[in-house]
């Protein structure tokens, strides 16, 4: 099993979710995060005080999938999340040892 974590632009969340459900992935977890990278931030000025905001709002999607569809999932996320403009984000994949489905107690493949 693979655990895939992707940082994407907030307004791309729904498209990515649809792309994944199309692949039969029936669960995922999203987190509001702040990202720092090539995409430069902006300055905000409050009266005399000027602040450089270098962390931008992003969404992190986490999804555990069977190894066999991992590449397809990465592919799907990449396509759905790409705008071509800087700040599109990244996808990280790592090995997942175990998975447990709390309600049913199912484990591993069955738990996904």
């Amino acid at each position, binding site marked *: 099993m693979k655990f895939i974590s992707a940082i994407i632009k907030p307004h791309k969340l729904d498209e990515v979710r649809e792309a994944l459900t199309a692949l039969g992935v029936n669960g995922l977890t999203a987190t509001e995060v702040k990202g720092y990278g090539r995409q430069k931030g902006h300055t*905000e*000025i*409050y*009266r*005399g*005080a000027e*602040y450089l*905001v270098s962390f931008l709002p992003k969404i992190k999607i986490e999804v555990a999938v069977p190894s066999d569809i991992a590449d397809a999932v990465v592919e799907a996320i990449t396509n759905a999340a790409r705008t071509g403009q800087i700040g599109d984000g990244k996808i990280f994949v790592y090995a997942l040892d175990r998975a447990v489905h709390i309600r049913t107690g199912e484990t591993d493949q069955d738990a996904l």
Partner: protein
Amino acid sequence: MLKSPLNAALAAPTLLVAGAAPALAQEAVIDKGDVAWMMTASLLVLFMIVPGLSLFYGGLVRAKNMLSVLMQCTLTTSVVMIIWVFWGYSFAFGGGTSPFWGGLGKLFLAGVTLDSTAATFTDGVVLPEYVFIAFQMTFAAITPALIVGAFAERVKFTGVMLFMILWVTFVYFPIAHMVWDGAGLIFNMGAIDFAGGTVVHINAGVAGLVWALILGPRVGYGKDNMAPHSMTLTLVGAAMLWVGWFGFNAGSNLEATSGATLAMLNTFVATAAAVVSWSVVEGLVRGKASMLGAASGMIAGLVAITPACGTTGPVGAIVLGLIVSPVCFYFVTAVKARFKYDDSLDVFGVHGIGGIVGAIMTGILCAPSLGGTGYVVEAGTMGAQVFVQIKAVIVTLLWSGIGSAILIFAVRATVGIRATEEEERVGLDLSSHGEAAYHA
């Protein structure tokens, strides 16, 4: 109004207490329209403090210090109201003839009854003394609350409370007496301060500056992001200040006459003009007009028109509004940055500077040729009037500056004035009050 010292009269109430001058009292009439207006005006000034000022300031601090600001404003207001009844009213309007304070004649409102009356600017027209006491009380309550913006996010709560008690006693009450009481020093110079530009705004602004200088900057000042936690609340607070300010300005006319309506119209348009000019300046300097800029202009305009609202024409009021914002903008950006002190919420930059601009311009805009209602100084020339206005400003700057410094040092030497670095990092809400402003 203020045409002649004779019916200047904010001292008069003391002469008119029923019994004190029966004959006079009999003739004097109370008009229910005036009473209705003055009650409305009094509650409007409370509306300026809580929720108004509290939200304006609170929105500008970080979430972790929100409650501390609300708390400082609320407790300051409450404590001062009690003091006002006990000795404040007497110190300011106790009927004493000293040019510096009102004496002890009305401690605990001694002698004030349902029949006591206070004079207005019109001979023979009086108000129930209770409403005059309430109206003036709200001024005494908001002035120290204005100072809160200067030491926000790092001050020690107990130190604030002690300071406020001392400050109204030794700084505010005397200055209120000097400016508004018939026996007062500044009053008798012939200075015009219709609704309290010197007494309230310059006074609080200077005290704020002194606080900022003695207290030192917040931890991480100039380094951490200290952006306002809610610009929404700040705008709401500013708007409430605008709405309440009509009680402050038009209420200072003490009667529901055309004079009050002029003060009201001026308070509308000078403020509008200051909002626009601050926004235009930002648009030109930064390419974008900010909401905080508009809110700041709102306050600057209100502060500037305060002393002038009863003696300026509407067009003059607009001119005043257009002028004050650029001056304050320059101050809170360039000057403040230059001197690197941390007047957290720009109490001096907006109230102090705006108050000074207003006080001086009042001497110019009262010119009949400019649509004003005329000079008050004997000399009757613009030069003389402006000179007196400046004198009044200087006396206030000195009294408030020196007085505040002494009191702050006294408090620092006793209960202390600053929270620890850890308390400041955690936030004053948790460290001083054991609460957090927001939860899920």
